[in-house]
């Protein structure tokens, strides 16, 4: 089966992301990469837990002084919803509805941007209201590194998905780009997985004290 072949609803396979050897390799390789990413984020979480609330002076803000429920809740809802929208995109990919897939991915990107905007607002808030910066304490370094690494992953994901949307807008789905869309959505879900632990371990546990 040639990867560039023009597909129709009739010829579109049930698992378009795994039709060619290249696609199977990409699929597996990306999962393995996520296995490595798991350890990478675990290392960052470990650092954060070791350095949480570790500040040089007693007047510096701690986790329970910084975090507020409404903002974190909004960010969580936005990112969780973006996970669902990318599931919708993959649903339409399987049905060979290219336009709908693009639209759902577009919504995912918008939600991702909203999340990133809130995160930037949040960091800005901590820096200016609390003097909690990357260099002010070990706690600050660990917090911004962990949450910032996640934010950088979100930013990279947005660039990636946007590139896919634009690059393929004129030519529709084929067996060459279907696996690309599929792994991008896997990546986006993984970002959400990491966020589930960030809002639990960093924010909620931080507020508990």
């Amino acid at each position, binding site marked *: 089966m040639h990867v560039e072949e023009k597909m129709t609803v009739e010829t579109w396979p049930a698992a378009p992301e795994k039709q060619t050897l290249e696609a199977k390799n990409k699929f597996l390789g990306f999962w393995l990469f996520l296995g490595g990413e798991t350890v990478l984020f675990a*290392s960052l979480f470990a650092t954060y837990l070791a350095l949480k609330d570790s500040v040089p002076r007693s007047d510096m803000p701690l986790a329970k002084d910084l975090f507020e429920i409404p903002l974190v809740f909004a960010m969580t809802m936005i990112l969780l919803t973006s996970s669902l929208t990318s599931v919708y995109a993959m649903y339409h990919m399987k049905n060979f509805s290219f336009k709908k897939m693009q639209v759902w991915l577009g919504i995912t990107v918008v939600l991702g941007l909203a999340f990133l905007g809130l995160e930037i607002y949040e960091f800005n808030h901590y820096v200016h209201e609390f003097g909690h910066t990357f260099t002010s304490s070990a706690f600050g370094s660990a917090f911004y590194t962990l949450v910032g690494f996640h934010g950088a992953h979100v930013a990279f994901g947005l660039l990636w998905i946007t590139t896919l949307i634009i*690059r393929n807008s004129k030519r529709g789905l084929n067996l060459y780009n279907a696996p690309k869309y599929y792994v991008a959505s896997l990546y986006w879900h993984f970002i959400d997985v990491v966020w589930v632990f960030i809002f639990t371990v960093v924010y909620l546990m931080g507020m508990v004290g």
Partner: protein
Amino acid sequence: MSTNAQKRGFGATLWDYLTTVDHKKIAHLYLIAGGLFFLIGGLEALFIRIQLLKPNNDFVSAGLFNELLTMHGTTMIFLAAMPLVFAFMNAVMPLQIGARDVAFPFLNSLGFWLFLFGGLFLNLSWFLDAAPNAGWTSYASLSIAQTGHGIDFYALGLQIAGLGTLIGGINFLVTIINMRAPGMTYMRMPMFTWTTFVVSALILFAFPPLTVGLFLMTFDRMFGANFFDAAMGGNTIIWEHFFWIFGHPEVYILILPAFGIFSEIFAIFSRKRLFGYSSMVFATVLIGFLGFMVWAHHMFTTGLGPIANSIFAVATMAIAVPTGIKIFNWLFTMWGGSIRFTTPMLWAVAFIPSFLMGGVTGVMLGSAAQDYQYHDTYFVVAHFHYVIVGGVVFALFAGAHLYWPKMFGTMLNEVLGKITFVLFFVGFHMTFFIQHFLGLWGMPRRVFTYLPGQGFETSNVVSSIGAFLMAAGVIVLLINVIITSVKNEKVGNDPWGDGRTLEWALSSPPPYYNFKQLPLVRGLDAYWIEKMEGKKGMTPAEPLGDIHMPNNSFIPFLISLGLFIAAFGAMYHGDEGNTWGIPVLIFGLLFTIGSMFVRSIKDDHGYHIPKEELIDDNDKGVKA
């Protein structure tokens, strides 16, 4: 795209290697680059041994000694042993499983160029500013206090090189899982492929902690973070743990492929099937797993407490069990075999007692209470050189002689090979055996000199002479390589005569598409089975058809170059009055991302070798 070997100019060849995505050519690149770094690391070792030749020596200053020592360790582990191991994995593993290439040829090339640029960056420290000087472990309390840019070179250079290794690991895993030839089940894979598989998994999980550790170090030293600064609430032990969570699997990443190479050699030159193949596989996986559970035995004296020390001590000693299984399997493979003492076999036979000694001192060091005595003495130096030189370096020499014909189509001279072996083997034991005693007598490691009258003089002289014998052995090997290349006498498919696995069914070197038709694998030692049934080659598993090949690409080079440039920006931006640092950092990163972007939007479907062309250069029938 040239499809067959023709005489080409130097420029064309250079461009071919800069853009190649062929695993066999990338293997050449790894071998050359790794070999070069091996020579540099070896020179550094010689300088160390000259300085320690006599008490109160002033051959190098104390500061330069620290740099030599740090760079010797870092270079040998990251820039010599790893890429040389990767060279053999690239050259042999895809052939052993009957694949036409690795799963991601583009990423394979990217992995190499990242490694090379990382290694170059690290070694440029000799010419710019100063070399890293906090030991290869670069413990944070010391390394964040060091002035100058030495440690910055370490953190950034290893970050880039480490990224390349991680990519390589994922690539090999996918290749082995997805691209085995028909009939090549997991339990028919040659031992070297199995060790490649386990090692790649170790890389996948061990390198992320190093990545994080190096990021923290980079942020602390260059961007004002406070991870390791106790005065700001930081904690230096964080680095130690990350380093060893990575570092312990790393030594298994080095030794397991060595086990794989020796397993092949014992079977080939005993003309017998590897004894206890399934227990070998089991032991390899078990060693890989346990390798993650023992890192804190490097930190017994850090003060983790008796409970943690006990747990890690027990886990450490447990590793002796699967390793023992392997030793016995190798011995039983030789038992009753029809042994030929070729150069690779000599290295393999010498490896068993040498490595065993390193293993025994390992168990001694693994006992937490005893470790307080040995810690930071030459006993430790002797131990890890016995496992790494006696295990890994022996395997690299053995592998070089064994696979030279498969990689370059010519045989290294056996007489010179045996001279190399004798010189290196004698030199190795002279250098390091005595160091056990130096350690027990109280000579601390990493000191740039010692005083007379402490009983260290004679032993250090012996040790230094041994180092020169090893150097002589390496020089003989280089001469051997030059003579062999000049003579350029091509050999056939199976130059050792007793090849067992698929790579020996192919011409030496194999055609760029490896297998004209994918072979049908009917059991362990697939080629041996066919030979025993009187067949010339493998039975094909598919009709002759067009072969899909990937296009060459210069983009991996550019992606790596961008990070190389960015590293300079990151390093110098904090200097007083520096204005170009941040722009260069941003430019480098954008350069990398831009190159990735080009790769992403430009479709690359590769090309097909038409069936007709394959029939053309075929002698007759099937040459799978």
